[in-house]
């Protein structure tokens, strides 16, 4: 049975997975997972401000993301507070202020759970259009900055000496991250968005020899997670967004375990061979 709403959910899930996979690889390579989480959490403040100001919540998210990125860049130079502490303050302050601000909104038409954990089964054709448009814009931007962004990730000073213009490239990357968070929110919600960025990328790492292979592998694992999560949600009536993340985590575990197994089975095999040999030697000497 394929209802229209399920088909839309499937398209939205796969679409968001395909966009967040290559972006997520950069988040993993540049060790920005916590930065992504901060952008996502403070997006709730953007949503609240967007609703209060009467503008599209997606624009509110973009505005809050840019503000957070600017605060991080500005305060990074000071040394009295570590980067992780600063990000933690911003993430939770954004979340808390957003929750407080939402409580001021009259009508209570706002489904807080949908923002926090996503509502993929309620995706409208309009949402799909946003995902398609935003996703294509992000992928196009990423294709454009792929080489310089990789060069900066490898060695920023070397890239600068080679004429890469670091600031515009990093700005484009940051904006792509903000847009991805805005379109992924409907699928998994702001509390789980980072998982969609980093888990498929981490799962793809053992199988990749080049950055591009890792991005493609992450896209495949992400799409598989979205499909599997939605199928599980349909079969067992579990919440859709969290189910997608659970499936992604299982795939990650299988990927790591598979690699670990190769080593472990090798050890077991060696041990077995040694045992068999010593038994043989033992029986021989025993017969004599």
């Amino acid at each position, binding site marked *: 049975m394929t209802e229209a709403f399920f088909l839309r959910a499937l398209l939205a899930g796969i679409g968001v997975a395909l966009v967040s996979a290559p972006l997520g690889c950069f988040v993993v*390579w540049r*060790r920005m997972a916590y930065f992504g989480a901060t952008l996502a959490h403070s997006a709730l403040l953007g949503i609240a401000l967007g609703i209060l100001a009467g503008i599209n919540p997606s624009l509110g998210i973009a505005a809050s993301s840019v503000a957070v990125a600017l605060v991080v860049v500005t305060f990074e130079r000071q040394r009295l507070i570590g980067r992780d502490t600063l990000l933690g303050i911003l993430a939770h302050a954004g979340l808390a202020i957003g929750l407080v601000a939402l409580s001021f909104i009259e009508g209570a038409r706002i489904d807080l759970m949908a923002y926090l954990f996503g509502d993929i089964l309620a995706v409208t054709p309009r949402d799909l259009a946003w995902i398609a448009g935003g996703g294509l814009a992000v992928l196009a931007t990423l294709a454009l900055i792929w080489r310089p962004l990789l060069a900066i990730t*490898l060695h920023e000073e*070397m890239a600068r*000496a*080679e004429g890469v213009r670091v600031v515009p490239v990093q700005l484009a990357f940051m904006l792509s991250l903000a847009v991805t968070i805005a379109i992924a929110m409907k699928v998994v919600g702001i509390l789980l968005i980072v998982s969609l960025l980093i888990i498929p990328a981490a799962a793809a790492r053992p199988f990749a020899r080049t950055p*591009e292979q890792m991005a493609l592998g992450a896209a495949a694992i992400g799409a598989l997670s979205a499909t599997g999560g939605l199928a599980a949600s349909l079969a067992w009536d579990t919440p859709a967004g969290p189910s997608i993340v659970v499936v992604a985590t299982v795939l990650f575990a299988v990927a790591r375990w598979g690699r670990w197994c190769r080593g472990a089975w090798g050890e077991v095999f060696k041990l077995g061979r040694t045992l068999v040999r010593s038994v043989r030697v033992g029986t021989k000497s025993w017969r004599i």
Partner: protein
Amino acid sequence: MPAEAARDSETLVAAEHLEARYGATLALTHVDLTVSAGEIVTLIGPNGAGKSTLVRIILGLMEPSAGRVWRRPGLRIGYLPQRVAIDPVLPLTVRRFLGLARPGVAEAEIRDALNEVAAAELIDHSVHDLSGGEFQRVLLARALMRRPQLLVLDEPVQGVDFGGQIALYDLIGRLRRRHGLGVLMVSHDLHVVMAATDRVVCLNRHVCCSGAPEAVSRNPAYTELFGAAAARGLAIYSHDHDHEHDLKGAVVHPVEGHGGAPGGKVEPRP
């Protein structure tokens, strides 16, 4: 005192009266430096002498607090930073690493560049599995792919075993001859300066002395700066090019003794 930085048609970069500060700390003062096409300049000096600061200013990564840097218009620089540690979370083969050197790289160029540094067999290796010497060669190949006129190397032999260091110096000398490159090299190893060096600049926040390697090793300012250890003189590595070294620095063919330059013979340290 160093002469006014003179510029001619061969000049690639000319730094004049540089001064650099980190907060209240003076890192460089009154520094003049020129590098011309086909010339190898080696920068030596103790830790904290401002060698890396000077290199960063020359590369345009940092603004001097006073003085200026002239670069030949359209100058292409190949830069080998002191430490390139590629995080293993980023999967990368040598082929792909070289492909990132500039937009639109063809496979044949990658092979040519690797051939030039005698590392063709590394093309499909992961960059995470390379030895120090192999990685430096790959970095050199990557720099060459940008067809540079100036090569800037910040301690290129760091983390490379002694045989590999000799091979690497040989390679840099060969590349200079073949392409007419200007080379600016930083060395913190005071005892080994490659023989092909045309000019040694001895830096300790200011330029203590500069000139041909042997002249510098006899300069009182040099001895004063580096103390008793320098009394033996600047060890200038040189040997006859009658054989080749492989990647690990082993001699590939007729084994002949390394000729020591008048400055002293280089001995492998433990």
